[in-house]
């Protein structure tokens, strides 16, 4: 089955992002396809490479980056939500005149059309976080 996954909560405060990660991992392990993971609302905060959680805790961003690399996942961060919350890639940082970027490996910034398209392409669009 083709799954689209939407992550609407940031890391650590809520379990939604971890649950989405576990779901994606389990689906891929079972041989299903994940057509896209879309990060929206505070979910965009999963895509900063600047988080430094304590060493004995899971690293939510790294989990996603590693899963993305392993399965060549399309992990898309909503540009409008990202700009509100300070998640920038190199291009956006330059375009907005900011002195740094923080996007983590495997994520890309794009528009909300990617969310709609995921809903169209997937057999099931599964939303995590409220």
């Amino acid at each position: 089955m083709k799954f689209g996954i939407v992550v609407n909560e940031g890391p650590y405060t809520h379990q939604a992002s971890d649950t989405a990660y576990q779901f994606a991992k389990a689906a891929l392990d079972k041989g299903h396809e994940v057509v896209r993971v879309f990060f929206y609302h505070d979910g965009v905060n999963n895509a900063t490479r600047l988080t430094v959680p304590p060493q004995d805790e899971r690293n939510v961003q790294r989990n996603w980056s590693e899963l993305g690399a392993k399965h060549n996942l399309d992990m898309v961060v909503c540009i409008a939500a990202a700009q509100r919350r300070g998640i920038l890639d190199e291009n956006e940082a330059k375009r907005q005149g900011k002195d740094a970027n923080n996007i983590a490996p495997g994520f890309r910034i794009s528009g909300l059309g990617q969310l709609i398209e995921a809903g169209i392409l997937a057999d099931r669009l599964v939303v995590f976080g409220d």
Partner: protein
Amino acid sequence: MAQAQKKFLYVNRKAPHGSIYALESLEVVLIGAAFEQAVSLAFLDDGVFQLARGQNTKGIGAKNFSGTYRALGDYDVRDLYVERESLEERGLSTDDLLEITHDTDDEEDIPSIKIVSRAEMADIMASQDVILSF
């Protein structure tokens, strides 16, 4: 786009202010309109407050985007389902809601808001292909 049209339902469950969900839901609806899918919106729980008329956000410094709902008809979003029980539980009636209309080829100013029962809302949800809940 080659794929067949799908039925998208955006479920709005939170008050318009106090969190960003209502505003960012509306942003998805407006962007999504370009994809020519069958789109409708549902308002339940505190989400019914999103359609309240006479909103004034000056005191909280937030953007008043309630006028945008009235433009949804221009984006071919013609069905706004509002749950009756959610209205009643909050002491609201249809008189408290914005006037939202749309035009078709044959007719103008058709009301877009449809008051439905909780049971009918369940049926509406069951008939969708994609549900995004905010």
